[in-house]
C-alpha cells in the first residue's frame, strides 16, 4: 500500500474523478409538494384577483371609424377620390374618464410584421449618417421604396417609413353645443431610448435641418418631407418625430394599436369629464384595399399597463388548478399512505 501514491498510472482519488462530489438530491415528496402547491395556488389566486380587479377598473372607449357601413360618419371618406376628407365621430362618456388618458389608434389585418416590410429601412440613415442618404447600405433592403420615379433617393427610405400612419385627430368636448378642443400631448409616446439614443437626426447644415436633407426626396406617401413633419414643434422633426418613432417600432401581430397622444394637460389632466365628445378625423389612410380596419381607443392605464383580462384570468385559473391539485394529491397521498401502512 505504501507505493500506491507513487504510481503515475493510479487514478486520482478526488471526489470529482470518483464521481463522489457532495451532492444534494431534491425529493418532491408529498410533504413539500402539497403545501407548495397550496401556497402557489393561493398566491396566484391572490395575484389573479388583484390583476382582474385592476383590469376591471381600467376604462376603455373604443371606436371603429373605418367607415365600412353606409351610415357610419366616415363612409364618404372611404372613396379613394375623396382627398383631404374629414369626418366626425361623436361619443359620450357617462362618467369621468380618469386621467391620464391615453389615445391610441388601432389597425387590424395590417401586417407590420411582414418580413420584407420589416427589413425595409436603412438604419444608417436613421442614425443621421448623411453618407447613406444617397447611397443605400444594403441596396435592396429599401427597394422598391428607395428611389422615386425620377431616381432621386428617398429619405427615409423603405416601406415602413413610407407607410406611416397619417390620419390625424382632433378631440373636442361638446359643452352646450360649443366645441372645446381637448389638448393632445404628443410627447413621450415613443420609447425614451428610441427618441434619445437609437435614432438621430443628421446634424443641421448651417443651422437648418432641411439643408441636411438636400438632394433627397420625401417618401412618396408623405405629404411633407421629414424635416417638416411637425410644423408646430421644431424638436419633433426629422427622424426624431414621435409619431414616426412609434410607427417604426413594428407591431407584433396583425391587429395592433399604437399610442397616438396622451391627454395630460390643462383642464383634462384629471381625465375626461362625463359628457359628449366629438373626434375630428382627417381621413388619409386607406385600409379597405386589404380589408383592414381602423379604430381609435381611449384608455387609461394601471401598473399593469392597458386593460387586459387575460392575465388576471390566467392567474385565477392556474391558481385554482394548483389548489385543486393539492387537494387531489392529498387524497391520493392519504390513500397511498394508508395502503402502505397495511403492507408494513
Amino acid at each position, binding site marked *: 500500500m505504501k507505493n500506491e501514491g507513487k504510481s503515475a498510472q493510479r*487514478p486520482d482519488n478526488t471526489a470529482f474523478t470518483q464521481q463522489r462530489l457532495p451532492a444534494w438530491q431534491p425529493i418532491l415528496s408529498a410533504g413539500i409538494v402539497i403545501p407548495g402547491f397550496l401556497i402557489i395556488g393561493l398566491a396566484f389566486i391572490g395575484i389573479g384577483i388583484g390583476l382582474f380587479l385592476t383590469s376591471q377598473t381600467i376604462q376603455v372607449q373604443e371606436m371603429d371609424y373605418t367607415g365600412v357601413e353606409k351610415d357610419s360618419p366616415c363612409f364618404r371618406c372611404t372613396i379613394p377620390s375623396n382627398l383631404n376628407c374629414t369626418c366626425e365621430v361623436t361619443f359620450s362618456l357617462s362618467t369621468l374618464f380618469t386621467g391620464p388618458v391615453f389615445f391610441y389608434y388601432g389597425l387590424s389585418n395590417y401586417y407590420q410584421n411582414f418580413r420584407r*416590410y420589416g427589413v425595409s429601412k436603412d438604419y444608417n440613415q436613421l442614425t443621421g449618417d448623411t453618407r447613406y442618404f444617397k447611397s443605400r447600405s444594403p441596396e435592396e433592403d429599401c427597394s422598391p421604396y428607395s428611389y422615386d420615379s425620377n431616381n432621386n433617393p428617398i429619405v427615409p427610405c423603405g416601406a415602413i417609413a413610407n407607410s406611416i400612419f397619417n390620419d390625424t385627430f382632433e378631440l373636442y368636448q361638446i359643452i352646450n353645443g360649443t366645441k372645446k378642443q381637448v389638448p393632445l400631448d404628443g410627447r413621450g409616446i415613443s420609447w425614451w431610448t428610441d427618441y434619445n439614443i437609437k435614432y438621430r437626426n443628421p446634424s443641421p447644415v448651417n443651422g437648418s435641418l432641411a439643408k441636411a436633407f438636400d438632394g433627397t426626396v420625401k417618401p412618396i406617401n408623405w405629404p411633407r418631407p421629414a424635416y417638416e413633419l411637425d410644423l408646430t414643434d421644431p424638436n419633433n422633426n426629422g427622424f426624431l418625430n414621435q409619431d414616426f418613432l412609434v410607427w417604426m417600432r413594428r407591431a407584433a401581430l396583425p391587429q395592433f394599436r*399604437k399610442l397616438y397622444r396622451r391627454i395630460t394637460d390643462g383642464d383634462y389632466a384629471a381625465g375626461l369629464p362625463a359628457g359628449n365628445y366629438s373626434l375630428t378625423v382627417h381621413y388619409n389612410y386607406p385600409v379597405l*384595399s386589404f380589408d383592414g380596419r381602423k379604430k381609435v381607443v381611449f384608455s387609461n392605464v394601471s401598473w399593469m399597463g392597458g386593460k387586459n383580462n387575460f392575465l388576471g384570468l390566467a392567474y385565477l385559473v392556474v391558481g385554482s388548478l394548483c389548489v385543486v391539485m393539492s387537494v387531489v394529491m392529498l387524497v391520493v397521498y392519504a390513500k397511498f399512505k394508508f395502503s402502505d401502512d397495511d403492507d408494513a
Partner: protein
Amino acid sequence: MLRRRLNRLCGGDEKRVDSRTIYVGHRPCPDTEAFIPSKFCDNRIVSSKYTVWNFLPKNLFEQFRRIANFYFLIIFLVQVIVDTPTSPVTSGLPLFFVITVTAIKQGYEDCLRHKADNEVNKYLVTVLEDGRSVKKESEKIKVGDVVEVVEDETFPCDLILLQSSREDGTCFVTTASLDGESNHKTHYTVPDTEKDLQALTATIECEQPQPDLYKFVGRMHIYKPEQEPAVRSLGPENLLLKGATLKNTKKIYGVAVYTGMETKMALNYQGKSQKRSAVEKSINAFLLVYLCILISKAVVCTTLKYVWQSKEGQDEPWYNQKTQKEKDTNMYLKMFTDFLSFMVLFNFIIPVSMYVTVEMQKFLGSFFITWDKDFFDPEIQEGALVNTSDLNEELGQVEYVFTDKTGTLTQNNMEFIECCIDGFQYKHRDTWSEVDGFTVTDGPVNKLQQKAGQEKEELFLRALCLCHTVQVKEAGSEEVLTDQVDGIDEMRPQLEEERGFIASSPDEIALVKGAMKYGFTFLGLESKSMKIKNRENNIEEYKLLHVLNFDPVRRRMSVIVQTKSGETLLFCKGADSSIFPRVKPEEVDRIRMHVERNATEGYRTLCVAFKQLSAEEYAVADTGLREARLALQDREEKLIAVYNQVETGMSLIGATAVEDRLQEEAAETMEALQGAGMKVWVLTGDKMETAKSTCYACRLFQRGTELLELTLRTLEDERLKREEKLRELLQEYHRKAVQDAPPVKAGVTRSWSTANQDYGFIIDGATLSIVMNPQHEVDASQYKSLFLQICQNCTAVLCCRMAPLQKAQIVKMVKTSKGSPITLSIGDGANDVSMILEAHVGIGIKGKEGRQAVRNSDYAIPKLKHLKKLLLAHGHLYYVRIAHLVQYFFYKNLCFILPQFLYQFFCGYSQQPLYDAAYLTMYNICFTSMPILAYSLLEQHISIEILLDNATLYREIANNAMLRWRPFLYWTLLGIFQGLLFFFGVRFLFSNPALQDNGQVFGNWSYGTIVFTVLVFTVTLKLALDTRHWTWINHFVIWGSLAFYVFFSFFWGGIIWPFLKQQRLYFVFANMLSSVSAWLVIIILIILSLLPEILLVVLRKPRGPHSRQMAAVTPLSYKHLKERY
C-alpha cells in the same frame, strides 16, 4: 484509404505475383537469368493523413461527408444564396465553430503523427554496402539491404535474420510495442549462411506482405560457388518485425524484406471498424422524425402562404409592394425559395450543437472510467482503459455476456496439482502450508505415495521436462535453479520463481515447475540441446530435433529429441481427446478415470504420451517435416498432415492436472450480471468437464439447474446418425425449455423468480459446427432457431471446445437474432479477439496472455470483477445520461422552434423570425447547452452504491427503455405543449400591446423576447427538475446559464452594436423588465409549463417497484456523503 495509397506507391505490376524475390545485398545470383531489381516501396512510414497542402480540402471533404455536417452546410448555402429570414451567420457560425474545432483537433493529431513519422524515418541506421558500414536514414533502406542492428535498438523494417552475435545463431526480441507481449522471444538465423556476409549470394523468395504478425513463409536460396544452391525454409522465427526491439544480443545483421508501408507493423496500423451504439441508431431515427416535422412544417407554411396570398389585397398591400425583381420571378421558383426559406427558419429544430454535445459528453464521460480507482489493480499498476468512447452507453444495455473462461473467469495462474503416471495417482503435497513441518525434509521422492515403476515415473517426468517451448531466462536463473534444487522445502517468492521461465502459455511453466518439484529440472536450451538435471543431480542432454508446435486445432504439441545414446524419442502432450485416439486403447482405460475426475474438479488436464522412433521412421518424419516447412503454399496444411502422421501409435504414460484458480469475485460478478438480467454464455476452448466445473464454481450453474447437454457424447447413439440424434435432442430440449416453460412476460422480467426451473445448456464445438452447417442446407435455419430459442430460455450457456472463429460465430448468431440484442464479449487472450471484435461491446482483460485482446477491445479492465461496476454503475449511468441528453435536446429544440412556426400564421407566412438572430444562434450554443452537458456528465439518478447493490435496477433500462418511441412521444408532446403555451400565452397578452404603465406599446421583438425568456427559463428549470444529483457544478451551470442569459440580454440590448445592420433588440429586454405584465406572464407561463411535469413526478413516484427501498437510501445530504470519504 491506406490500402489504395499503398497500391499506388508500390506499383501494381508486382502485386499480381504472389511471391517476391529479394536479392540479398543487391548482388545478382549466378543462375537467375538476369538481375532485375524489382521496385519495392521505400522505407518511409506514412501514418499521417494530411500534408500541409492538402489538409484544408481533404479535411473539409472528410468532415462534410458526415451527413449532419453536410445538412448544415446545405442550410448555410441556402441562406447565402436565397433571400432568407435569418442571416447566414446564425447557422454558419455554429457550423464554422464545429468544423474549426474538429479541424484543429485533427490537424494537431496529424501534426503529432508527422513528428512521429519523421522521428522514425530520419533515424540513422547502419547499412552494409560494398563491405562498408554506411549510416543511412531509416527511410532510405531498400528491400535487399543488409542492415545492422545493435542491442536495444528497434528494427527499422522487417528483416530476415542472417547473422547474430550470439554463438548459437539466435537473438532475442521483445514485441512489446507490437502486441504488448513483453517476454523475450527467440528468433533464429537462417541455417548455414556464410559467416562472411559480403560473400553471401542468396535470394529470398517470400510471400507478399500480409498483416498477420505471426505468419511468414519464405525460402532462401543460397548460392555457393561450384555447388548446388542450398534451399532453406524461412518462417516467422527468422523474421524480425519492424517495431520490435533487440534484447540480450549485441548485434545482428538482417536483410530487409518488407519496408515502409509494407511492413507488418504498418499493415496492422489500420484502425478497427467503427462500432455504432444503439443510442446512435435511436438518434438517427429521431432525427428522421424531426426532419419530417421540419419538412412538413415548411410544406404547410408554403402551402398556406399561397392560399393566403390568393385572397385579394393580401399578396401585395399598398404599404408593402414588391420589387420589380420579385414580380418577375417565376411563381414556382418563388414557391421553391419560399420552401427553402421556411426550412432555414425552422432548421434550428435539428441543432448542430447536439452532435457536439453528444460527442463531448462521450469523450469527457469516458474519463470517469479511466479515473475510477476501483478499476485500479495494484498488481499490474494499471486502471481501466477506454479505447473508444462511442460505446459508453452501450454498457448499460447489455443483454448477452460472452465470456472466455481461461484468464477471464479463471486467473490463468496455473499450479501443478497432481499427476497420474501409468494409472497411479501422484499428489504433490502442499509444501507451502507445511513449511515448518518435518515431513517435507525427505525430499520429493517420498511425496509420491503410490508408486508406478521407477522407469515409467522418470520417463514421465522427462517428458514433462522436454515437451514444451519454455525458455530459461538468463539473468539470475542459475541462482534460482540451484536454490530450487538444494532446498526444496524453502518457499521461494512467487515472483522470483516466475522470472526463471518464459513461455507463451502458463500451463507449460506450471508443468515444468511441476516436474521440478519431483526432481527433474529443466536447465535450458542451448544450441539445439536441452539440458535436464535429474534426481541424482546429473545433467542429461538431449538433442532437440523437431518441435511440432501447439495449435488449437490439433490441441497437442510434440517434440522429437535424441538422447545421448542415440535413441530418437517423440514426446507428445495434449488434451485427452486428441491424445486418446492416438495411443493404445488398453492404456487409456487406466488413465481416463483420473483424467475425468480431475476435469470435474475443475483442473486442466493434459495427457502425456511418448513414442520411440526407429531410424527409418525418423528419417521419413524428418524429410516430411522439412519439405512441409519449405513449402510456400499451404504450408500450414502440409505441416499438420505430417504432424498427424508422426503422432500416431504412441503410448500413454500419464496425465497431469493443473489448477487454474477462479478470478477474485468471479462468482459474485456472474451472479450480479445474471441478476441484472443478462444472459451469460461461457465460450471456451477448454474441455467440457473443466468448463462445467468452472461454471458451477462461478454459480452460473446452480445445484437446481437442469443441464441440457448437446455434445458429441450425447450424440453418440447406436440407432441414429449424429445429425438425426441432434435433431431429436434439439426438439426435446426445445419442448422442455421453451414450450413447457411458463409464458414469459415480455422481455426483461424473467429468471429472478425462483419458482421456475432453471436450465443450463452445454454445447461443444463439434456439435455446434453440425448445427451451423448441417448436411442439408434446409435444416440450417431450423436448427439455428431451435438452438437459439433453447439458449435464450436458459440462464447460462456453456460452449466448450470452441475454436476462436466459432466464438465469433456464436456472438454473431446471437447478435443477429430476433430483437438484435446487445452483446458483450469479454476475454483476455488472442483467441478472444475475434469475438471481442464481433460483439457490440468488446472488453479486454489485461491478463497474462499478452495484450492482443486489450488492443482490440473497446474497453479494457484489469480484472473480471471490475465488469460489475463497469456495467451496473457506469453503463447504467451513461445510458441514462445520454438518453436523457438526446431526448432533452430534441425536446428543447421543438419548443424553441414551435413558437416560431406558429408565428408564421400571424405574420402572413412571411418567414418573419420570432426571435432575434443572436437568440437563434446562442440558444443552443450558450443558453441551454451547459446545464445539459453537466447533467449528462454528473447525473446519478440512483447512487452508485445502490446500483451495485441492486443488480435488478439494470433491468429498468433494458431494451433501450429510455429511447423507445413512447418516451420520445412523451418528450415530443411535452415540447409541443410548452411551445403552444409559450406562444399563445404571450399572444393573448399582446391582444393589448400597451404593457407598460406609461401607456407605451411593445413591438414584435418584445414579443419574441418574452417568449424566448420563458423558453430559456422553462427548459432550464425542466432540466433542474430532472436532476437528481445536484453537485455544485450543477448549481453553477444551471443558475449560471440563467444569469448569463439575463446578463447577455442586457448587454446585447444595452449597446448600439456598430456591426449590426439593425439594432432590433436595443433596450427591448430592459423595457420588457420594466413591465409588470411581462414579469407576470413570464412567471405564470413557466409555472404552467412545468406543472404537468411536477404532477407526474409526484404522482408517479410512489408507484415505482423500488420506491420504498430507494426512498430509504436516496435522500443524500451533503453531510451524509461527506462522511463516506
